């Protein structure tokens, strides 16, 4: 076992615990988190298996496949977060506007 493996296992474990502890979520999401954790454990303990899996998609290494999935997934996350940012901005604007109109002052 290489040093990196226990390190990654600990990080995955902490991530799972943090998720279960701090994010209120529905049961499906918790099960999904457990499933992802199981995949992580497998991939970390048997790195060669991920390589074989990747090669069946025509990608050289498991690490490369993960990188591609991560890159395309983060574009998706970015667009979602940006949409969220825009709608939050619209709400904040409406609050500031309502207050400004409510507290308007007439000069002399």
């Amino acid at each position, binding site marked *: 076992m290489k040093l990196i493996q226990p390190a990654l296992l600990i990080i995955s474990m902490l991530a799972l615990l943090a998720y279960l502890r701090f994010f209120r979520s529905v049961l499906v999401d918790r099960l999904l988190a457990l499933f992802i954790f199981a995949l992580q454990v497998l991939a970390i303990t048997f790195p060669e298996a991920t390589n074989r899996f990747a090669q069946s998609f025509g990608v050289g290494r498991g690490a490369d496949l993960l990188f591609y999935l991560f890159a395309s997934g983060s574009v998706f996350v970015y667009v979602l977060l940006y949409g969220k940012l825009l709608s939050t901005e619209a709400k904040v604007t409406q609050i500031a506007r309502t207050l400004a109109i409510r507290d*308007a002052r007439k000069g002399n």
Partner: protein
Amino acid sequence: MSINFEKVWIIVPAYREASVIGAVLDSLAATKYQIVVVDDCSPDTTAEIAERSRAHVCRHCINLGQGAAIQTGIDYALSNGAEALVTFDADGQHSAADIPALLEGLDKHKADVALGSRFTTGGAAHNMGGARRTLLKLATLMTRLSTGLNISDTHNGLRALRAEAARKIRITQNRMAHASEILSLVAQHKLKFVEVPVHISYTDYSTSKGQRASNSFNIIWDSITGMLRR
């Protein structure tokens, strides 16, 4: 139906204009129109100075941008019985003497919107730099293409709207992309518009404080991502 001048509201979005807004409001206070200044959380004394004039003053508790300030002014004026609204910059570049012509444009042509233009015959841009002229012409070309409207000056902040038109135009672009947003709403609602020649003055103050050319990229970005919201 001619417009009752006492029900005309001048909307003045202002951010960090303490050194000039007093004079701008003096020139507006000499008219019969109602005035609302929307101070966008200026760190200087812009709002205090505005409160010394006869204007109504709304203050945003956070800085939101010129587009947001104009929409706040529109809401305020409409809820106070405005029949027509005029948007007017606080930085001294616009001239109160142009307002009657805008209102006459609404009246005479039964238009919903009267758009000020510095580039149409009779209009002028005093002391405008060549680079700014080129940039504005480019922006005008782009906005003409995107809205399909035949307009000579799409980024002019001096304009008049009838109340019914102002109700249809809801600005969601908080920052500088509101200028083209207003025009696309004009196109979308098939509002009748006229262009009216106006005089815009560029001073050392307005140029140093005004928009940098590089902000064009932000404006384009805001316009594109704004479509995500629709």
